[in-house]
């Protein structure tokens, strides 16, 4: 009888744990989400998720550049971060394609990562390899179309994807990219519990991360454990590649911009990149630590609270430097 009692208590405990885990695992989509105010709902997808959209990718906007444009136009492929959408680079596009700032020579190609910007099911079922495919597709297409000056700008996880491609030599097929601009690249997560995602992921399940109303429309609020696992696999892979060391393609340069106080990407990642990703002649790339508390300071739109004047000035300076560097002759 005593033994039966113990078994009964253990069974009840297990049932409660399972019930609790199921509750936590359930994706969070409240009334506001269901009405389509959240990206997760699938009712308000990123416009760049439409394959017929002709405003996002340069390869769609200008598929047949003239011979003079092939050499004169400088394309920067902009890659957003984990759970984000092309919204993250809209401000930069607006700045760079302005005829004054971009000198009429800059074109920004907004790439939407695989599984992103559509609905939560698509996100949950995608792997980090799926996330990166559209980057390679756009780069290969631009190369085939004859563009000769291609650079990359990336934010957070977008940078991890790009570094993984550089290390694997997957961006060395055409003319070497001119510049890689890495904004708050994630190599080591600030939240170290992510390293135990395989262990605690099934217990924690979904980890919602709501932001401002504007951010909820352009970032997935829910972060299913499957995607957190993919994220950690990717960043750990890149960290190992950096520790082993790899080189940029010949004549390619890179600059890391890293916030000193960042709740998503550990600033120490900038040091690992500086040490591990070298130019083809073995020299160091450029790096700058930014006195900011924002993750990805190049995106200020939709933040709550409003960014400071110092953040705006910093954003403008980084934008200008990226354009100047990408347009400069080698």
């Amino acid at each position: 009888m005593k033994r039966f009692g113990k078994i009964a208590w253990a069974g009840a405990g297990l049932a409660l744990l399972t019930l609790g885990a199921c509750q936590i695992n359930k994706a969070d989509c409240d009334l506001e989400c269901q009405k389509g105010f959240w990206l997760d709902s699938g009712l308000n997808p990123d416009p760049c998720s439409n394959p017929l959209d002709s405003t996002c990718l340069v390869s769609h906007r200008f598929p047949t550049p003239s011979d003079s444009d092939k050499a004169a136009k400088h394309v920067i492929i902009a890659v957003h971060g984990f759970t984000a959408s092309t919204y993250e680079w809209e401000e930069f596009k607006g700045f760079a394609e302005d005829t004054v700032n971009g000198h009429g020579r800059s074109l920004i190609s907004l790439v939407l990562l695989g599984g992103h910007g559509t609905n939560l099911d698509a996100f949950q079922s995608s792997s980090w390899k799926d996330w990166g495919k559209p980057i390679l597709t756009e780069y290969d297409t631009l190369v085939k179309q004859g563009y000769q000056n291609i650079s990359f700008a990336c934010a957070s996880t977008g940078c991890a994807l790009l570094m993984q491609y550089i290390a694997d030599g997957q961006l060395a097929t055409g003319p070497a990219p001119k510049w890689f601009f890495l904004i708050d690249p994630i190599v080591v997560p600030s939240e170290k519990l992510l390293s135990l995602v395989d262990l605690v992921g099934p217990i924690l399940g979904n980890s919602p991360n709501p932001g401002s109303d504007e951010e909820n429309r352009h970032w997935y609020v829910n972060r299913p454990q499957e995607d957190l696992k993919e994220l950690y696999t990717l960043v750990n892979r890149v960290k190992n590649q950096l520790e082993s060391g790899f080189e940029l393609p010949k004549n390619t340069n890179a600059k890391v911009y890293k916030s000193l106080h960042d709740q998503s990407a550990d600033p120490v990642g900038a040091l690992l990149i500086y040490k591990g990703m070298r130019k083809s002649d073995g020299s160091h790339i450029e790096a700058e630590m930014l006195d900011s508390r924002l993750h990805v300071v190049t995106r200020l739109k939709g933040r709550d609270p409003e960014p400071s004047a110092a953040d705006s000035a910093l954003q403008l300076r980084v934008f200008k430097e990226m354009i100047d560097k990408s347009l400069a002759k080698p």
Partner: protein
Amino acid sequence: MGKWSSIWLLIAGLSSLAGAGEGLWSVGLRTQGFYDFEPGNDWFEGPEIGYSNYNLGSHRLQLKVAYLTSRLEQVFRENILKQDYFLFSPAWHFRRNRFFDPIVQVDLGYTRFDVESEIFKDLDNDSWIAAAQAGFALNLGQGEYGLYYHFGYNFITPESSMVYPGVFGLGIWVML
């Protein structure tokens, strides 16, 4: 330097409290890693000195100090960070005189890494350490030498650090 001096003074003070009579000293090699279920763990290695006394729970309480570093690995893999740990690790042995000896241990200490370039001079490059671990020791040769394994949890994992929560350690020792 101030922090390091404080740590060593604390360790020296606690060791003095244990008294000097009937002491057992050991010296060994300790390694430590982080478990993250992914290949490519960061490893730290270094010397460890242990001390126990009959007055400290009949030798069940052992006081250990260790210096662990990635500098050895850094010789072969130059891109890893040069990171150091200074640890004071009191351990409780449940079966000190037996072959299989379950242990619990806390790690208190300090870690820091070299920033290596003026560009990164503003990085927070140090952190206090507080961890709890459990494991076992295997006492060989009537306790003259042995090895141990323990794993546990780091409670302090700042945003800017290379300190992860899941930690484990392996070590060997010989009695002096």
